[in-house]
């Protein structure tokens, strides 16, 4: 099975010149067993269907070349239709072969479906993903509230451990899709579902909303950050802490700016009085690589642009522009950058 998919990948690379940019964001570049099973099925079907295509087009070409007659005079129709008996056999056989091929496809598809769903669930990590217009609320639920982690847009998972994803939506339908990891799953308001996967290769895998969800559907990204169990545990412990206290005057002023401006209307920073759940939790914003649902890098310039003019970056999103004095803005960014 692995051999088949490797050979076919190499063959296709040879023919098409690496159209998939191997090593990148792609359904045919699996980083999990689930995506690998689907990749295997893809290549199996690809070659079956390619053969069908070639056979039909070859027959069409042969039929056209065999029979062509000049147009000067339109031929009369004869009452006899020679060759129909042989054609009946040929068509009957072709239909029979089609039925058998479809059965093969059906069996391969059902078997792959079962493989994809057969993730062993011992020692699993459960992650709740709740879609919002236009960001992802990520929770690692725990029966003890103080052990529950809430973050946004970046899903940290340990490599080699089964992950159970519980899906839900706070507004419209979204769809969670990281092609290197697994097929997509719709996040339906009022209809919670779950699915599971297990990442085999460490790395950062991009994902994106796949169900049209309004104005900023195009820029509703997320990342799956797969790391060793030790790294994951360290990250998890850090996320459990309340926000870092300001270490200097600028950061202290930045916290005051945060708590006395519109920021506090939507965002939470645990350890402060900011507790609104409308926007992403910013308690550990500095630990994230990207901001604005994987739209901008988490660097001071981008952060400043985003705070001042979010509608210029992502027109229609639910964050209001913030008119801040330059030194207030500097202080706020210093504070946010300190929230590791």
């Amino acid at each position, binding site marked *: 099975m692995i051999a088949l998919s490797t050979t076919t990948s190499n063959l296709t690379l040879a023919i098409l010149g690496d159209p998939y*940019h191997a090593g*990148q*964001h792609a*359904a*045919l570049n699996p980083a999990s067993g689930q995506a690998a099973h*689907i990749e295997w*099925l893809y290549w199996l*079907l690809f070659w079956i*269907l390619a053969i069908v*295509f070639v056979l*039909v*087009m070859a*027959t*069409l070409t*042969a*039929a*056209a070349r065999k029979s*062509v*007659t000049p147009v000067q005079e*339109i*031929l009369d*129709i004869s*009452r006899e*239709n020679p*060759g*129909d008996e042989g*054609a*009946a056999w040929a*068509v009957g056989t072709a239909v029979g072969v*089609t039925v058998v091929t479809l059965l093969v*496809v*059906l069996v*391969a*598809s*059902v078997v*792959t479906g079962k493989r994809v*769903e057969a993730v062993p669930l011992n020692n699993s990590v459960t992650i709740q993903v709740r879609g919002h*217009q236009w960001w992802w609320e990520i929770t690692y639920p725990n029966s003890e509230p103080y052990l529950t982690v809430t973050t946004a847009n970046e899903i940290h998972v340990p490599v080699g451990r089964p992950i159970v994803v519980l899906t839900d939506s706070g507004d*419209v*339908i979204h769809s969670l*899709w990281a*092609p290197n990891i697994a*097929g*997509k*799953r*719709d996040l*339906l308001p*009022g*209809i919670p579902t779950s699915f599971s996967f297990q990442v085999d290769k460490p790395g950062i895998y*991009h994902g*994106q909303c*796949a169900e*049209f969800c*309004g*104005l900023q*559907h*195009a*820029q509703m990204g997320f990342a799956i950050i797969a790391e060793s169990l030790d790294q994951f545990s360290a990250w998890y412990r850090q996320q459990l802490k309340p926000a870092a206290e300001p270490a200097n005057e600028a950061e202290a002023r930045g916290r005051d700016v945060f708590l006395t401006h519109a920021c506090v209307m939507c965002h939470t920073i645990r350890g402060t009085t900011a507790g609104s759940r409308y926007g992403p939790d910013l308690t550990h914003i500095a630990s994230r690589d990207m901001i604005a649902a994987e*739209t901008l890098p988490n660097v001071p310039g981008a952060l400043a642009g985003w705070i001042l003019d979010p509608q210029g970056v992502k027109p*229609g999103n639910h964050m209001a522009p913030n008119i801040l004095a330059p030194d207030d803005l500097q202080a706020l960014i210093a504070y946010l950058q300190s929230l590791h």
Partner: protein
Amino acid sequence: MAIAEATVPRESEHTDRLNHTWGRSRGFLGWFSTVHHTDIGIRYMVTSFVFFLLGGVLAGLMRLQLARPNNGLIGPDRYNQLFTVHGSTMIFLFAVPMLFQGFGVYVVPLMCGARAIAFPRLNAFSYYIYLGGGLLLWIGLFLNIGADAGWFAYIPLSGPQFSPGKRVDFWAQMITFTEVSALGSAICLATTILRYRAPGMTLNRMPILLWEKLVLSIMVMFAMPAVMVVSGLLLLDRLIGTQFFNPAEGGDVLLYQHLFWFFGHPEVYIIFLPGAAIMSTIIPVFWRRHIFGYTPIVVSVVATGFIGFGVWVHHMFATGLPQLSESFFTAASLMIVIPTATQFFCWLATMWNGRLQFRIPVLWIFGFFFIFLIGGLSGVMLASVPLDIQVHDTYFVVAHFHYVLIGGALFPMFAGLYYWMPKMTGRMLNETLGKWHFWLFFIGFNMTFFTMHFLGLRGMPRRVYTYNQNMNWGALNMMATLGVAFMFAGLVVFLANFLHSREYGPIAEHNPWKAGSLEWATSSPPPPYNFPYIPTVNGREALWEAAPNQPVVSGIRDDVPEVLVTNSLDADPEYKEESEGASLWPFLTALAVSAAFVGSIFTAWAVPIGAVPVIVCLLGWLWPRGHSPSPRMAEKWSQ
């Protein structure tokens, strides 16, 4: 062909009287009061072709925006309107009105050998209602209040909370318009096929195109009510505060999807079957022999009509339904390949044993095979649940359905236009320009849409107005955009060819292709009464199998618009009846209904108040008029 001597009109007292009886009155009123099916059919085709071009312009704008990463040409608000109106236009205002209604209304009565379509006033009404729905959608777009929730407008995004304003109402009410129109046409076409066939055209001898239009009409009758229910419930949620789909009040967001796709998937076959029927009609003509496998093809068409209703869940594989039910729908979706494959094999067998005489429609037949086959094969991939959840809602799917719909409907449509245009205009189209048109369009199409398969596999979701540079989607998107230029060039060549040939092209004889079906038994274009004498039919290809002394039907009056009604199975003459003549009432009724529909978007009072003019118009329409000089009661046919 002896029969043509009686069925092609020639100057005589008889044809003079028929012209007087059936002819359309001149001038403004005549234009709005005509109910003749060739007039209405051409209007359907012209209107839907205009909508096709407009929808194509929207597609071009979208491709310009996507040509480069982080492009700022069109913002998300405008872009969402563009793709919503593009999809809705192509499905509801182009594909169905062109192929089912346009071709159907024009060709079916001629192919039946009938003087008129059944219920001609309902037919005219259906056209005006369709036009009203199209104008509603497009006026909304021009006023920047175009629908913006996608052509299937999933709840809750399309609901009152997340789409305030009137945009989605325009979309939902457009659905109401076009579905009323499609239902009206379905009734007209099914009745025409079952009761107006020329004597001798038993079910067993009915041209495949008529079979397909019959199956389609029945599919429309079953599929359209589902979408009318779903768009109706959506409107109620939006306008008067019902909670059918609101999850917070116990409503169900998946119910919407089930209802929509219970219509939506049969709709795909409603769009594809006319294309298949055009293939079955044209291939024998250009390969100069009878179709191979008439019975398996007819059985396939009927089977598609049934299985098409059992596959809708494959649009919902990503919602997380139980695996067993998903496997059932995988099996059903694969099963529908069998009838389509059977038709392919029968066409190939026809070609194999035929003698090809190459004319322009043949190019489009080849194009259909190439493109539709790719679309059908990628459809096999999409039927598989594990593969579908990877490529669902990505550009892979965008590529797939454009291959299926453009391959399965647009290429056959062009084959059909090149084939029937001489019948409609009386002039032949230029073949050199036809080749340019084909090759530009074919190359451009594959440039644009084949690249989209790769984009989908590399993770590009559909309906995104922009994408980031580091996704590496830029080059493929640029390629896709360049392809559009070729397609547009092809369409310009076609329009030039059409406009020029319509005036100056070589005159078309009554049967320029020496085809076998009855529309070629009359002049090009046909007179308003279609045939001076109703032909009779000996075999499946009426003209090829006509006896040297094939009789025609006499005894049908030429001083009143009389049609011959035959029975459904054997097409034995049963009685004559008077066809409904020209009337302004269908147009006025359509106006009144449109006013009520549009008004109801703004106030619920439009329903009771708007009903008054509708009732008045219906009274006018249906008021008995005793002016007929012949007894209107059924006159038993004397053999």
